[in-house]
């Protein structure tokens, strides 16, 4: 037994030993990149896998019975969850990146970040192996908050089914979204990662949305026209879009723009004529590109998303999330900004906060 906190060379030694470990494995598993080089995506167990039946046992019969059940069934793989297609798409991008840049560590690193008890971990790892997912890092916190660990891994995006944890992550400056169950799947691409974003309060701050909610659409249009050349402030998912852009440029540099395995979409209720310009100019001022910008001028997002078929769609308003789900799109809620206080344009009566 010895000290837990060795002097600095500990980290380097770990890194070198990990490299050696993975390089020597008989089945060639790609070794995970250093967190500071990678785009780290943290997924919870319930977003990666469908754990509805197990969750029911937890809620109805308590923790001990739940863990016992999981242990009893640990050799039975779990079914895929809402984030599963997204994770597979990330893996595909990594494969393409490794082909073009064999020595680069600028890759996606997928981390399993779960509150689950470690004994449930065996079933989770068995399931990960069953589907051949490249997830080598995980934190099973046995009930403790994941926030500190998200920061420790320099997480770029956190997906969970627990909106409390997601809200906490956003408050701590980590891009995060709440996922919902979806009876999958309809013909998602397996060669291209497709990510769709709402604009206000997702990529951008909620400053304009506040104007709509409090002063109405006309004021909003006037305001946006007047401030067309003033960039909007950034929203919680701007940095994630930035990370995607950085990886996209690696493909462009190798002449793969037409064949790029990452495609991004902006799906906004703004209209191109009156309020769209400010959005595009803001993106330009940030040096960010978005592949397709779709201005709906208030039309429902569902049908359009159904055509786009993204692996994930981020929006701050539950109204749009529900609309997306109605049309079979995997939607993730970003609990940020003024949109949380409203539903379908009406102010929500805040219920008593339960502890």
């Amino acid at each position, binding site marked *: *037994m*010895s*000290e*837990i*906190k*060795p002097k600095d060379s*500990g*980290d380097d030694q*770990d*890194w070198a*030993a*990990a*490299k050696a*470990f*993975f390089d020597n*494995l008989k089945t060639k*598993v790609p*070794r*995970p990149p*250093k*967190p500071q080089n990678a785009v780290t995506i943290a997924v919870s167990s319930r977003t990666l896998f469908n754990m509805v039946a197990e969750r029911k046992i937890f809620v109805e019969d308590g*923790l*001990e019975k739940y*863990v016992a059940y999981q242990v009893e069934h640990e050799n039975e793989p779990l079914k895929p969850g809402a984030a599963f297609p997204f994770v597979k798409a990330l893996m595909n991008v990594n494969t393409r990146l490794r082909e073009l840049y064999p020595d680069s560590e600028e890759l996606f690193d997928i981390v399993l970040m779960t509150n689950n*008890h*470690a*004994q449930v*971990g*065996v079933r989770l*790892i*068995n399931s*990960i*192996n069953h589907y051949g997912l490249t*997830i*080598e*890092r*995980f*934190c*099973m*916190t*046995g*009930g*403790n908050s994941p926030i*500190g*660990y998200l*920061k*420790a*891994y320099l997480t770029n995006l956190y997906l969970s089914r627990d909106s409390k944890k997601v809200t906490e992550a956003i408050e701590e400056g980590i891009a995060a979204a709440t996922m919902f169950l979806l009876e999958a799947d309809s013909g998602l691409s397996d060669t291209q990662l497709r990510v769709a974003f709402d604009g206000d309060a997702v990529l951008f701050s909620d400053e304009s949305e506040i104007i709509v909610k409090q002063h109405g659409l006309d004021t909003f249009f006037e305001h946006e026209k007047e401030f067309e050349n003033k960039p909007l402030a950034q929203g919680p998912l701007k940095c994630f879009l930035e990370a995607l852009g950085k990886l996209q440029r690696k493909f462009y540099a190798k002449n793969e723009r037409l064949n790029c395995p990452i495609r991004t979409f902006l799906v906004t209720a703004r209209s191109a004529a009156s309020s769209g310009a400010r959005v595009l100019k803001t993106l330009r001022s940030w040096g960010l590109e978005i592949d397709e910008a779709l201005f709906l001028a208030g039309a429902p997002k569902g049908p359009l998303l159904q055509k786009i078929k993204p692996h994930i769609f981020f929006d701050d308003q539950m109204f749009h999330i529900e609309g997306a789900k109605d049309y079979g799109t995997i939607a993730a809620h970003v609990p940020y900004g003024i949109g949380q206080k409203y539903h379908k344009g009406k102010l929500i009566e805040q219920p008593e906060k339960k502890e």
Partner: protein
Amino acid sequence: MVSTVQNSDVRQKDVDHAVVVAVTSRALFESDTEEDGDGAYAAGVAFPLLQALQRVNEQLLQRNPAESLLFDVVLMTTDSQQQQSSRFMSSTRHHGLEVTRFCFSSEEDFIESLLKNNIQLFLTTDENEVLQATQKGVPSVLLDEHSAVCSSEQLRVLFCENAIIRPSSDPTPASRQAAQSFSSQLGKMRQKFGMFDSPLCFTLVTLRGGKDSCCGALKALRSIGVSVDEAYCLAGAPRSPILSLLRPHFLLSDGFSNLDD
């Protein structure tokens, strides 16, 4: 020369069934400073650990007043001055610590004292003492200022791969065996509590291998009766951010890892 004095303030444990933990006077007390004018020493770096051990005992006895699988904490000191000795004893009483015995020995004889008292875990702030004790097959932990900020409410034990043992102290078969049986004892203790709100918590960290190494370690620990509560697989990611969140009281790394580094 080795001698033992019982602490009459504290109920003696059943030494055949208890887990005997020795802590040195220098780890337990700050002998440079005095507390209150009472003549008692101030708390040292081992305090939170001791309080956590006590809490485990309290909760075990609450569940079963006749419980014999408890922590039996003894104070070891190599300070030979008579005056120091009685101050250690009075400081122990002053802080209401659950120390059952005081073991006095010279520096040369302290290993003998450890073996004679059947010590299963030795806590010290002295690196040399750790080395010597480990070589004789006594599981030992080096405490430092990090220990002082650990929880006093929950005993957190970290199981980690062999990888971080210093090269100069290769585990002997004896120390492996001792560490394994100590881990099993802890495992039995852990079983007496539920999963939620336990005063004893086990964490597994693998630093270098991938998920399959970690899974293997989880199962290996299960096979010696240790059911870990939390698990972290770092796969080469920097260890300090994660370890600083975990704040374990001590680390166990022998006796369960059947995987090569």
